[in-house]
């Protein structure tokens, strides 16, 4: 019965999405206040019904209702409760439902906040409704999570053990809040094109920020998960699925900067609109890449060609429609801001050039092999060496320019003064580079350069924070986000340059050394988990003759799924990770053990957290400020 309730809720949601589309678009006319009220209430109604459908599916997973196909295929009675719940989005159907749930949440948020005037909001709701309707149709016709099985099996097939992990339980919802969050700025941009109303950049900014924060956290979480689960200590593999989340992040970052210029000085009006369209397009392409089965990987639950085709048509319509609207309406927008070459506008423009080039690099690297294969059957791989030669130099150049942006004023500024004010940061960069050269071996140009740039970024941010004490939250937020980049860079450079590893076969009682650590192998015990059997190695981290910590890497076997999984053990000092993965049984109590020492590894994710914190701070400042630019301030700016 419950499954049918979910199905019914989805149908109601679809009806409301269609109403919202019609009413929202009708509400862009000045005198259609009634339509606007309908659009607002259908946004709320849609959230209620999609939420209900999601709750019904979650309930089916919690009580292990195996008469529902999605549950039978992806759950198991012995699974811990948290993974029964995360199993809801650990499969294609449920993850698409989560997608629509997040989309509905944003629609409701747009309706509730009513930022940027009622006509603009109404138009945004109309577009958001259209997107929701398209994805609800996709769910109902190709990916219905409520399909029944008759007779229902006695036991479910279980969930891929890789997905049974706290990091990966949180990763998809976080990433979706980011991916789908870009739909709000997309809708606002489309509405701005329809209504011809300025002020969309300010209205949509909180949504951009939420999406950006979530993407930042989602990418960091995914990278952290890859680090501790895959068992070889890597944190980023330039896998197409990782790239699919990086592209929207790069565009969202560009959008945050460009929209700031649009809002504050009226520059780059059409460009910001185009970026808002491009950002969500990247989300859609990412969804297509991950969901269609074009790339087979752990994320690609769906390998059904009809679904791939449906998503492709959907993307073509969404992106094509938005671009057509852009081509039609953008020329009517008044452009042409006036600013000096030495101004914040120029800095933000350069930021955008580099970020778009970086995104192009990831885009080409991800899609080129697919296209080439389709065209002439040539198979190539585009792996980390490609990105080291293309993405890395472009991003590096961007990082060098970052500190200038915040110290240049709008319209007209003094580049020399900005440069002089950065001397202390330059000093910190030199100190960082010299310290690396003096202390650490082996010496490497890449690591030294990376630390110099990190010092440059963090130094400039510290200057910003000190100088602007008591200033607006936004300046402080930007400084934090930029400092986070430096922190992540140090982590990446440190682990890449100075990682040491050891792979040894050990008998109980034997010791091994890796980096500065001495480890004693105390044997392996057989442990029974809730839904797995594990070989747990007992490894003593020695401090002289004394045991300082016990580390317990496991090798798990999941009988329901018939799969193996590694559970690594990581001992961290906050600045250095000791990372252990248990290998295979060599007989006679001897086991292979792989150990890594990754200096500065935790900084990679700490930096992500600092960036996200900067985003939060900016969001907080925004939500406290009034939604519309105060008239007086706008006039003052215009009169400057």
């Amino acid at each position, binding site marked *: 019965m419950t499954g049918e309730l979910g199905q019914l809720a989805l149908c109601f949601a679809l009806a409301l999405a269609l109403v919202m589309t019609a009413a929202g678009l009708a509400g862009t006319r000045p005198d259609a206040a009634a339509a606007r009220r309908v659009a607002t209430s259908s946004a709320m109604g849609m959230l209620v019904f999609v939420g209900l459908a999601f709750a019904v599916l979650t309930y089916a997973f919690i009580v292990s209702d195996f008469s529902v196909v999605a549950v039978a295929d992806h759950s198991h009675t012995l699974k811990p409760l948290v993974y029964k719940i995360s199993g809801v989005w650990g499969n294609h159907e449920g993850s698409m439902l989560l997608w629509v749930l997040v989309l509905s949440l944003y629609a409701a948020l747009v309706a509730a906040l009513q930022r940027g005037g009622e006509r603009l909001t109404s138009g945004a709701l109309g577009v958001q409704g259209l997107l929701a309707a398209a994805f609800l149709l996709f769910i109902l016709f190709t990916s219905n999570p409520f399909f029944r099985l008759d007779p229902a099996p006695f036991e479910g097939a279980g969930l*891929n053990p*890789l997905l049974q992990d706290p990091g990966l339980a949180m990763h998809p919802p976080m990433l979706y809040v980011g991916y789908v969050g870009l739909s709000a700025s997309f809708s606002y941009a489309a509405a701005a094109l329809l209504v011809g109303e300025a002020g969309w950049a300010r209205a949509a900014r909180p949504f951009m920020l939420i999406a950006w924060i979530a993407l930042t956290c989602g990418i960091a979480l995914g990278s952290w998960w890859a680090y501790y689960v*895959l*068992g*070889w200590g*890597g944190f980023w*593999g*330039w*896998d*197409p699925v990782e790239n699919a989340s990086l592209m929207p992040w790069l565009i969202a970052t560009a959008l945050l900067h460009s929209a700031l210029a649009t809002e504050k000085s009226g*520059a780059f009006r059409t460009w910001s609109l185009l970026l808002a369209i491009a950002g969500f397009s990247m989300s859609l392409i990412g969804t297509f890449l991950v969901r269609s089965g074009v790339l*087979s*990987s*752990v994320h690609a639950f769906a390998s059904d060609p009809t679904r791939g085709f449906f998503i492709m048509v959907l993307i073509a319509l969404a992106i094509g429609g938005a671009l057509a609207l852009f081509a039609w309406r953008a020329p009517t927008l008044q452009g*042409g801001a*006036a*600013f*000096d*070459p030495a101004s914040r506008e*120029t800095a933000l*423009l*350069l930021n*955008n*050039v*580099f970020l*778009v*080039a*970086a995104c*192009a*690099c990831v885009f080409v*690297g991800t899609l*080129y*092999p697919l296209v*080439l294969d389709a065209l*002439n059957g040539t*198979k*190539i*791989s*585009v*792996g*980390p*060496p*490609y990105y080291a030669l*293309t*993405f890395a130099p*472009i991003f590096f150049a961007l990082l060098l320019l970052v500190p200038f942006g915040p110290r240049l004023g709008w319209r*007209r500024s003094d580049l020399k003064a900005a440069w002089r004010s950065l001397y202390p940061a330059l000093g910190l960069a030199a100190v960082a580079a010299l310290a690396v050269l003096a202390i650490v071996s082996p010496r490497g140009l890449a690591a030294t350069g990376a630390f110099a740039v990190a010092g440059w970024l963090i130094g400039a941010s510290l200057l910003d924070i000190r100088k602007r004490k008591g200033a607006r939250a936004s300046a402080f937020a930007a400084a934090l986000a930029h400092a986070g980049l430096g922190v992540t860079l140090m982590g990446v450079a440190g682990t890449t340059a100075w990682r040491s590893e050891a*792979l*040894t*076969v050990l008998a109980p009682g034997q010791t091994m050394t890796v980096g500065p650590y001495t480890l004693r192998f105390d044997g392996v015990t057989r442990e029974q988990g809730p839904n797995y059997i594990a070989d747990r190695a007992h490894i003593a981290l020695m401090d002289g003759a004394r045991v300082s910590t016990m580390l317990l890497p496991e*090798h798990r076997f999941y009988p329901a799924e018939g*799969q*193996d*999984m*590694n559970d690594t053990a990581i001992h961290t000092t906050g600045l250095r990770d000791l990372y252990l993965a*248990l*290998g*295979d049984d060599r007989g006679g109590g001897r086991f*292979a053990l*792989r150990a890594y020492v990754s200096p500065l590894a935790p900084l990679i994710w700490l930096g992500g957290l600092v960036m996200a914190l900067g985003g939060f701070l900016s969001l907080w400042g925004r939500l406290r400020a009034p939604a519309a630019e105060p008239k007086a301030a706008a006039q003052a700016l215009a009169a400057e």
Partner: protein
Amino acid sequence: MKTLAFLFLMAMAAAANVTPALAAPAFSDAASAGATAGDSFSNPATETRARALQRQLRCLVCQGESVDESNSPFSGDVRHLVRQQIADGRSDQQIQDFLVARYGDFILMKPPLQPDTWLLWLAPFLVLGIGGAVAWVVVKKASARAA
């Protein structure tokens, strides 16, 4: 022949269902652990060279893993091959050429520079160049307006 070998590999990948290949336990295959634990070169420079070369090769039956990281039997075999050829005194280029002849360009993590990949290598810098040129024009116009 090349096509045949590829079809065979694809079939293997399909049979292995790919996901378990990613989930496979670290070095469950004796040959792979042996390649690093057993026959590692005593000369650290040679060992570094072998590892660097292994990182440049894609594990064809896995998803997004290099031969160096992967635990598949395939990667174990390739590691063994690489080490054997290094021991035989062949250069990195010779070893790569040998593997490409055997498995195709797909095995190289770094795509080769050839007519049908020019666009791949140039596109990022092309976008950067065009973007830079457009930015130049935009700034020029804006400063003319400001003046």
